[in-house]
């Protein structure tokens, strides 16, 4: 996985993400938003797209971004961190004593924070539906003005996308090359709600 950065050699990739970021910002008129990023194809996560959206938001010195990793079965967020996080989303949802500040880490990229999954737990999906998750998002939004990118597992694989969709302002669905049929796209759009859907991202 590669994270985009200004001045990288592959200009087409950089420009694609810059364009994507700009379009998302146009949707909300430049205001901070919570965007849910998921993939339409099973076993093809949306981590690259989600992380790069967050990274490209952070290009701008005016903005900061937070990447929330909700891939409970296959955590990815730790890749962005220098050391293994002590606590993550799972700890916060289970343990009432863990505060929002404790689980947000600075990444190596300026203005990009990461909220990792933490210790894997089999029952964690149910916790996501609890009011504490909504509370967490409210706290995070209140803490600092920043754009929040929630990375969820593929829609067909898990209900996480459906659970978290109502908590987000926008939704972006990744369409990996040669993996998804039209009907799968339509059911994915229904899952997140078409009014919330910002659009599709076709990824080669």
């Amino acid at each position: 996985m590669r994270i985009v950065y200004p001045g990288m050699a592959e200009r087409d990739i950089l420009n694609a993400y810059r364009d994507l970021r700009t379009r998302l910002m146009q949707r909300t008129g430049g205001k901070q938003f919570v965007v849910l990023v998921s993939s339409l194809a099973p076993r093809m996560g949306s981590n690259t797209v989600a992380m790069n959206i967050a990274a490209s938001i952070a290009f701008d010195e005016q903005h900061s971004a937070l990447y929330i990793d909700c891939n409970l079965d296959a955590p990815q967020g730790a890749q962005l961190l220098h050391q293994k996080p002590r606590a993550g989303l799972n700890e916060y949802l289970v343990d009432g004593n863990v505060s929002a500040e404790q689980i947000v880490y600075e990444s190596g990229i300026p203005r990009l924070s990461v909220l990792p999954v933490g210790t894997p737990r089999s029952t964690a999906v149910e916790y996501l539906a609890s009011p504490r998750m909504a509370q967490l998002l409210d706290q995070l939004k209140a803490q600092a003005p920043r754009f929040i990118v929630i990375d969820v597992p593929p829609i067909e694989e898990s209900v996480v996308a459906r659970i978290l969709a109502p908590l987000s302002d926008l939704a972006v669905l990744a369409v990996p090359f040669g993996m998804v049929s039209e009907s799968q796209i339509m059911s994915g759009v229904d899952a997140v709600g078409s009014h919330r859907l910002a659009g599709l991202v076709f990824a080669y």
Partner: protein
Amino acid sequence: MDLIYIAEILRAVSVELRRYRRLFLVAVAVVAFAVLIFGAVSPKYYKTSVMLHADVTNIIAPLLAGRAEVTSIDRSEQARESIYTRRIITQVAQNAGLLSGDEPLEKVESVVAGLRNNIEVKAEGPNYFRMIYSNVDQETSFRVLNEVVDTFIRDAAERRRAESRSAYEFINEQVESYKRQLKMAEESLKEFKSTNIDGSEASVRQRIDTFRVKVEELAIQIDEAEERKRAVELQLREERRYLEGQGKVDEYHTRLAALQKQLDTLLLNYQETYPDVVAVREQIVELKKQAERDGADRPAYSSNTEVKNPLYEELRKRHAEAETDLRSLIMRKAATERLLEEERARAVRVAATQADLSELVRDYDVTREIYEEMLERKEKARLSMTLDIEGQGVSYRIQEPAVYPLKPAGLQLVHYAIIGPILGLLFPIGLVVAYVLFDPRIRIPSALLTSMPEEVELLAIVPAQDVPEEQAQRRRENKRSAIWLSLALAIYIAAVLLGSNGII
């Protein structure tokens, strides 16, 4: 289908090819080797060919020129039909030693079918055609083709002879039949003429005209004769009345003259008072009185007045003549009118038979014309037949004789060696293109745009990004593939070289 769409298809194909690169390379190699092996093991055919020229001189066409249409024939088609007949094929097989004559029926069938399949007749221009025979054996190929050509030419010549003979026979038959028809027509015309002797319409009309003129003339003559007779009668009547009066007066005059003479004689001798003189004088007076009285009242006729009058005689003669003429004219007129009536009746009969006659005459004329022409053609046909029997009108000759085949026909191993890799590349690429186009999963962004509802936007198209580890792995893999590929290529080239030099 715009350029962007095509570019996206190509990109999708290249992505898929990269994804299945190992399989792709294997497929290329397999197909290329398969083609090469096919080329190596497929049997080599040796082709022998002969070019034949057809002299298009049809016998029956000039014979029947202008009388009947003869369809023009495609010589190569005719040759093909002739060669493929079982008669010729079996003859060829026997002459070429493929059949000895006592093989089982299945064997004969298979040999015949094999020959039919491998003999090819190709038209090359209007009167030229090529016969080609291909066989796995050079010797057989050459021998069989020569046999085919020989048999064909012989058969054609025989057929041509038969054709000209049958043409002659046909013409001859026609001549005979027309002769019969002509005789029949003559007979019926003769019979008709003998039973219908009324003569022609024209002659009858002429006679009618003549008779009519004659009748008219006779009528005028009768009128004239009647008029003449009437005039003569009138004159005769006048003459008779005059004659009667003239007779009485003459009598008195004669008596008076006699008395006067007597008186004169008496007076010479006697005195006036002589009684005789007195008596004569009294007689004269008396006679004069009587003459005066009688000259007017007394009837004219006097039986004893036989007076000789030439005019009267002449008139009587004329009268008799006129009457005779008139009677004879009337008789003639009646006779002529009867003849005229007869002619009229005949005219009706002639008109009725005229139609029959003209039909018979027409039949006769037409038949005679054709018969005479046919007779002429028959002589020509006899000449053609003689020519053909002497073998001077053979219609096929060899334009380009067969050459002993030294190289097999068709594709050589080198060709297969070139085609192999091309097919090897095209085959998997074609499969991938078909896969990209027909698989319902989306590989083409513009297809995504067109198939989605409007509110679903396409935000971005993100190119593939290589992670450094992946790149390293790819490089290793490429190196391995290159080694395998060069190995395969080396084997391939070696196989081609060995194969084309006849070592394998």
